[in-house]
């Protein structure tokens, strides 16, 4: 008697599980109609995003004059400059895959990165370097905390410059390199060997200037996270921490080191993208929800934030001219 009751419970449970799983598998991976076959024909005003729509999970999309075109490529983070696209894709088994594509979506190089999921991706304005930041679990002594792994890849050769945490770092001439260093948010200075990044150590978040030739970092300012250099190279848009775990958009003038704000007051966690010298684009994550939107705001603090896309992430401009001003 007991055995029958048990068998009934188990049978019902297995049936329920099986039905639910099969329904999910059958509905998974619907291949959307591919309209975006090449990036080189996109107008300068186009916006590239990773789709967050239900029916085109994580496919690259281009927003052209208010209409979306979906590509075949799937990414979790992307960035596009000077005909080179960097695409980061999370994989349960191999970590994060970094792929470099040209403007026809031809695969140039790929690299598997340590880490459990992709955080930031950037291509330099001259298309020579790509950078990626991934989250790694267990880098520090406490298993549950996360740290980052950031690397820079030479686009031509596909070779990585290794873990940037091994580079030297100095502030006002003395070394600040420590075991707890974390680096993220690379933004390149085109036509040079320099880039900016966040260097975090002993509880401080520094804006550093890095040098790929000298493999070194130099502190420029403090309290700057996830910098993004403007096309004219004069300002940096960054995340300013207003309380632990919450950031707002801020701007730093590199000449005067003065900070300023934009009209966007909500909490933003993204590496800001410059659409041109005046307009910024960024992800906005709705509180307590997986929904992500893409918004835009003027860098000079005027106007109001403008919604560009419901359901999209990782916005990237389509600058096709090297170092355009």
């Amino acid at each position, binding site marked *: 008697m*007991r055995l029958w009751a048990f068998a009934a419970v188990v049978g019902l449970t297995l049936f329920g599980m099986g039905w639910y799983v099969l329904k999910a598998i059958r509905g*998974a991976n619907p291949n959307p109609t591919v309209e975006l076959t090449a990036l080189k024909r996109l107008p300068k005003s186009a916006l590239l995003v990773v789709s967050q729509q239900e029916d085109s999970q994580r496919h690259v999309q281009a927003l052209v004059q208010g209409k979306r075109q979906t590509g075949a490529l799937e990414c979790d983070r992307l960035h596009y400059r000077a005909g080179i696209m960097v695409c980061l894709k999370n994989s349960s*088994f191999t970590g994060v895959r970094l792929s470099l594509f040209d403007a026809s979506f031809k695969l140039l190089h790929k690299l598997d990165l*340590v*880490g459990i999921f992709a955080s930031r991706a950037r291509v330099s304005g001259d298309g020579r370097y790509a950078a990626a930041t991934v989250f790694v679990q*267990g880098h520090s*002594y*406490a298993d549950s905390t996360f740290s980052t792994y950031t690397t820079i890849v030479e686009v031509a050769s596909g070779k990585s410059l290794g873990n940037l945490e091994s580079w030297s770092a100095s502030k006002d001439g003395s070394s600040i390199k420590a075991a707890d260093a974390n680096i993220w948010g690379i933004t390149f200075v085109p036509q040079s060997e320099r880039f900016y990044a966040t260097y975090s150590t002993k509880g401080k978040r520094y804006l550093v200037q890095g040098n790929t030739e000298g493999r070194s970092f130099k502190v420029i300012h403090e309290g700057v996270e996830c910098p993004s250099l403007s096309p004219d190279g004069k300002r940096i848009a960054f995340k300013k921490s207003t309380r*632990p775990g919450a950031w707002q958009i801020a701007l730093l003038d590199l000449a005067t080191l003065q900070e300023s704000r934009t009209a966007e007051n909500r909490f933003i966690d993204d590496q800001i993208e410059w659409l041109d010298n005046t307009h910024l684009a960024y992800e906005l994550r709705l509180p307590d929800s997986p929904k992500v939107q893409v918004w835009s705001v003027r860098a000079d603090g005027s106007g109001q934030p403008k919604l560009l896309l419901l359901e999209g992430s990782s916005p990237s401009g389509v600058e096709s001219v090297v170092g355009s001003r």
Partner: protein
Amino acid sequence: MYQVESSSQIGKLRLAGVHRTVLLLGLTSFFTDISSEMVAATLPLYALFGLGLAPLQFGLLDGLYQGSSALVKLASGFAADRWQRHRDVAALGYGLSALAKLGLLLLGGVWSSLIALTLLDRIGKGIRTAPRDALIAANSQPETMAGSFSVHRAMDTAGAMIGPLMAFGLLALAPQRFDLIFAVGFGFGIIGLAVLLFFVPRREGEGTRRPVSWSEAWRGISQPGFGKLVLLAGLLALFTLSDGFIYLQLQRKLELPPIVLPLLAVGTALAYMLLALPLGRLADRRGRWGIFLAGYALLLLVYGALLLPVKGWPLVFMYLLALGAFYAATDGVLMAQASIHLPSEIRASGLALLTTVTSLARFAASLGFGALWTWSSPSVALTVFAVALLLCLLLFRKGVKP
């Protein structure tokens, strides 16, 4: 010395030298571990990737996950003893954890419910562990106590290995569908609970039938033999490094590709599962305390090997074997030894006390190790731990007389 019940009562229900109830408890743990390890393995991905939580929020979640089961252990152990309802209290624990998976399926999209449901799941785990171990002890002969616990632990570990594999398999078939993980996890949790409720007898094989009073409980726990055992086990746990850290050091030292990290955990679990029964039986025959210390000696070897400049990736197998053997020689064997010291009426309370002390000690070990690492270096920290462990092994050679 407290005797467990006479062999004639339970002799006729044995299977493979182990009582049928122990096997059933093993089966319950098998299914429940598939369920909980499926969720545990994918929770980081879900929190960060599916919900977009910041790492700080996840750190909070993870800390809660690791630590909250300790809160209820003592209370539930005592409740189980006081009313002699070990199976029912364990069932409550298994039920709460299963309910938590259902909750994740229905409500898991919001930060606050994620916290609440994680707490529910871990409280369920805290509730069931000691009563279940007391049930294992109550259904075993003293001569084969370690063997019984080892069988249970082996089945438990088998489930823990299957869980993550199933979870990632599901995600590969239906990407981003974390709700599948919760649904399937809930299903396995229900099956495990069903095994317990339908087949594990409520009151079989327990010493006395009358409820236990506070003073009896206190007298039972505070006798010097058991107290010393808790102290020694706690001290050894104080110098036990967490797996995660050992794997990380291993990966860096031998320059292994990072994809290896989850595989290291699977390797250790496999070694644990295969060695549990042989080492458990050996412990029963040759002395439980000796095998227990031998396990810690293996851990000391692992520390030493991490410090020495030995290279070459084939060494990985040696490390995993040593770690797996460490768990096989210490985990179930300690519970077995403790069970011998405790009268059956207050066994759940005693075991709950023991595991609470060792959990706290391991937590302190993580903090201490981290502090040493930050102030000096990983090598210094490891050396301190190795020396301390060596001292403990030398001092505790004699063990504890029951």
